[in-house]
């Protein structure tokens, strides 16, 4: 198909039009507005970096950034640990392995908003009842302070996404040649040695893939945050995405919200570009 042909452009028009109007124009316009006093409809002057300066004096944003970072680190570690563990379990010769995969993956298909509401019930009512029965004080009063709100969010994310990470590890684990594993067994390798020296080096690419997936997914979370803790108590569990939404659509500080959105974009893009860089480097090595 040639460039100048009518059909080339005809085929591309619908997606080019929607991508431009929905993603590219808003991104550029947003970047532009972040240097003005835009109120959602018009702006009267350029104010340079004033919005950005204001962001870093904005305690709610700094708190959200810090909370999101902590949350992301906890999720990346926990998710990869659980995901790999589950994958190692269900790639063994178990009778129940198909059933287990089905169950572990299931929470993934349900929206974060709905899952957050279900878990709100569990953390508040079920934890409380069990705590009373077993005399465990630490199970009471969940989601009523920052610490339990934080771990609540981590638990729900781990429970929801672990099956997804498991599926990725399975895809790589099943491509490990069985002869290699058997040969190492013949040589008398222990289970740990088998994993460390035979399986692990072969599934290393899966670590890169799932590391970055969990990193960017955890960083961008909004729905679970909204339905589980709603940012509370007193905004202490508010994450970045929620902070941007609230600044723009609830406090109506459009230009300030947009400047936060630009910072958010830079962080997410940096994570993604690091991944691209790693993938390129790996391809060269292989």
């Amino acid at each position, binding site marked *: 198909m040639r460039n100048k042909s009518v059909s080339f452009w005809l085929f591309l028009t619908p997606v080019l039009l929607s991508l431009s109007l929905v993603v590219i124009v808003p991104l550029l316009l947003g970047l532009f507005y972040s240097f003005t006093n835009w109120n959602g409809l018009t702006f009267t002057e350029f104010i340079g970096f004033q919005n950005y300066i204001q962001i870093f004096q904005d305690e709610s944003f700094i708190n959200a950034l810090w909370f999101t970072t902590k949350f992301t680190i906890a999720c990346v570690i926990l998710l990869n640990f659980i995901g790999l563990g589950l994958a190692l379990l269900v790639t063994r010769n178990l009778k129940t392995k198909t059933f287990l995969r089905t169950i572990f993956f299931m929470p993934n298909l349900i929206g974060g*908003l709905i899952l957050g509401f279900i878990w709100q019930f569990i953390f508040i009512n079920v934890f409380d009842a069990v705590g009373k029965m077993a005399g465990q004080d630490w199970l009471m009063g969940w989601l009523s302070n920052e610490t339990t709100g934080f771990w609540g969010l981590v638990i729900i994310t781990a429970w929801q996404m672990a099956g997804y990470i498991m599926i990725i590890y399975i895809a790589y684990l099943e491509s490990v040649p069985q002869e290699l594993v058997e040969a190492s067994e013949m040589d008398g390798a222990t289970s740990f040695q088998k994993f460390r020296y035979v399986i692990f080096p072969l599934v290393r690419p899966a670590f890169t893939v799932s590391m970055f997936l969990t990193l960017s997914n955890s960083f961008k979370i909004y729905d679970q945050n909204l339905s589980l803790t709603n940012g509370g108590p007193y905004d202490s569990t508010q994450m970045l995405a929620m902070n941007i939404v609230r600044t723009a659509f609830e406090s109506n500080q459009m230009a300030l919200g947009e400047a936060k959105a630009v910072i958010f974009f830079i962080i997410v893009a940096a994570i993604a570009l690091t991944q691209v860089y790693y993938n390129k480097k790996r391809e060269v090595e292989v």
Partner: protein
Amino acid sequence: MKKKKRKGILILEIIGVLLALLWLAPFYLMIVNAFKTKKGIFSDVLGFPEELTFENFKNAFIDLDFLNALFNSVLVTTISVMIIIVFSAMAAYALQRNNSKLSKTLLLVFVAAMLIPFQSVMIPLVSIFGSVDMLNRPGLIFMYLGFGCSLSIFLYHGSLSSISKSLDEAAIMDGANRLQIFWHIIFPILKPISVTVAILNLIWIWNDYLLPSLVLSGANETIPLRMFYFFGQYTKQWHLALAGLTLAIIPVIIFYFVSQKHIIKGVVEGAVK
């Protein structure tokens, strides 16, 4: 040695089943409590209900306006997914069969667009679409095309490189135009990847809350939106809230058990590529 190994497997089977029960516990707790009265939940949150009451479901069904919300979700999701499939496949075909610098640059633009998080475009997006009165269902579907097309084009582009160009050339000889070639020859061959693209888009569009919450209102609300308002109305009335949540999950669970194989395959392809 053999015996020891069999014992090891048995232990793993038990661990697996215990973990599965742990994974299912939230669903169990949701369902059993959805059948209890408010008092029933208060007196025993873990066990089965003493007597089944369907009252909660009846009330939740009515208050959620469930059939209407289900219809809205199905409508928005299916139309968006169909549009994404057809237009992304067409675009990927044009880009893959054209060897110019321009088409390589365009593909790169689509791939790069995948890195842009929704939150960093949403504020101007809502303002632009609001100013031309497009904060409605057609506007939402158009937005889903914009957000969904990048990954879809990328996946289609990969599959198209394994479809021989001689097919196109033979058809051109027979006097077919590009649209005919695409629609009658290429698109049917792409069916396996179309299933993947459909599933990946279906999952996120069905569950999406933030974008429709900024775009839709009133009678057009999808299940997640209705659920949000419903839940706000019934805080502390867990028997009703849980019945509503159970209703909201049923369509997804049915879909999962019907097309589980395709879903898992699709998710792997979407993540690993």
